[in-house]
């Protein structure tokens, strides 16, 4: 679980990001100005910063440089409405790990957050769901302390569900994430693998079917 500072002056968007991040098990910490962001950073250990560039009291790029100077090592993802190439280049050259342009899909934001957390080794690697223990670092799944006989594809699907826990993923998205972009499977492939996962791990109640959409792992 990572503590993620959300620096965004629009309260509605800040709350949206916070809620979405909290759903996946991380802890979103809101800040509505650069001053607030700096005071949060002084008081609390932060693993990742989601930074809006257009802040009312300071330019986001300036704040990013100040953070790099005073709180070295905290990765920053720029979240902004500025979509011009010079802004993106300025953001990435200024030390941002990634650059997301508004309006963005929440799924995309979460995926990018995960990637950056993984890069900085701040991603949670061991998950417990009832008597099931999943070690993503060791690629190992145990049920009641016993190793399970999951196939490679079933493990990949479980990993995707875990990394997006409490988020409903469509069948198409699951195919894309667990099988890869090149796979030409149909929705039934996902259904079959989900059924096997439920049976092998006893997660009938945790892996929910979302009617006419997909699945959600609820922890």
């Amino acid at each position: 679980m990572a503590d993620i500072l959300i620096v965004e002056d629009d309260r509605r968007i800040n709350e949206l990001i916070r809620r979405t991040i909290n759903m996946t098990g991380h802890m979103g910490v809101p800040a509505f100005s650069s001053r607030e962001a700096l005071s949060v950073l002084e008081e609390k250990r932060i693993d990742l910063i989601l930074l809006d560039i257009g802040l009312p009291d300071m330019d986001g790029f300036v704040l990013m440089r100040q953070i790099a100077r005073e709180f070295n090592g905290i990765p920053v993802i720029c979240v902004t409405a500025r979509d011009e190439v010079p802004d993106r280049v300025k953001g990435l050259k200024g030390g941002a790990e990634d650059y997301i342009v508004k309006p963005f899909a929440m799924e995309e934001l979460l995926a990018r957050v995960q990637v950056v957390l993984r890069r900085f080794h701040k991603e949670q690697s061991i998950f417990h769901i009832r008597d099931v223990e999943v070690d993503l670092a060791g690629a190992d799944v145990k049920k009641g302390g016993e190793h399970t006989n999951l196939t490679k594809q079933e493990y990949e699907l479980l990993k995707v569900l875990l990394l997006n826990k409490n988020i409903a993923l469509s069948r198409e998205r699951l195919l894309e994430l667990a099988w890869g972009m090149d796979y030409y499977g149909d929705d039934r492939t996902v259904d079959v693998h989900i059924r096997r996962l439920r049976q092998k791990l006893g997660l009938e109640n945790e892996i929910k079917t979302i009617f006419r959409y997909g699945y959600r792992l609820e922890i």
Partner: protein
Amino acid sequence: MQLWKKNFLVIYGIFLVVVNAGLFLLDNYISKNEASQWIDQAKNSERSIYYLAAGLKEEEISRMSMNLNEAAERYEESGVHIRASVNGYVAADHFPEEQTPEEVLEGPLIEVRRMGGERWLVIQEAGREGEDLIVVEYAQELEDLSRIQTTRMWIFCGAGLVFSGIMGLFLYYTMRRINRPVNQIAHELRTPLTGIRGYAEYLMMGKLSEEDRFFAASQIVESAKHLEDVTEKLLIMGNVREGAIRIERIDIRQMLLKLKEKYPDIETDCRLEFLNGDKALVFCLLDNLTANAVRVGNKVRIAASEEGIRVWNNGEPMDEKILKDINRGQELPASRMGKHGYGIQVCREIARAHGWKLRFRSSKGEGTEAFCQITPDIN
């Protein structure tokens, strides 16, 4: 590259071609005229030498050729070289040595020759006057003409460069100014769009309680309202920019009452009965200024007088730099202006369309005042 920059480059490229081609043609035309004037003048001079030579009588040719020689010497001082002969007797010879005389044909031959690295206008004429054969060779240095033409060419080049530069800068800043609000509006649209999309996805994907669902739905409604507001302002700005304003007599007292209905807590002080302007736009201007004031302060006062309309609030003052920037007429994004600035750009456009001025004053203790000056400056 942004589309407007591409447009700028294309327009500027066409402009450069037109301006430079125009200057080139103009220079060419002037030079041709000038050269033909020089040739006419040279022809006249040559003709006068010819007549002078034709007037020489055989019996006094040696005495009278003195006059011709003197005339030729005077010509030489002004860069004109002459050789004249009558029946083979050379009465004057001030022709450049490098110039080898060729067979002189009857009737004048006019040409430009290069001699000793310089350009010369050469006129050669042979003619019969009674029994006498008159031959006149006339050569005039073209250095002066070349110098005048070269200087003019450089002046034209310089003027073309300066003019193109000034026009290019003017065009660039104008196109950027026109384009920038579109960018800013696009940015302002992105925030409510993110809200609508994000909360819809949150509703769709999240495991939510009834309370969460209600919250997300209300945020979608609020974001949609925000979007509606931005598009409304966009339409108004479009109309204002196209000059679609209808001046009429506005009952300002009625308008303030209407505002008071919308914002019941505000104070109004009306010392102006009527105002000439577009009713809908003026209401939009006052509505925006009041909405900003209400958002920031808990005490808001609108005062209308002959001088103008003041909207005051007692809230937190504006940032000094932002205040300076907006009073200088800079277009700032809404995110930089905070609560004070929503729709200020629209207000400024409306004021400008009416020929009014919109200024802001803000300080701690005195609050913030937006002043729309409707009378021209006294000084």
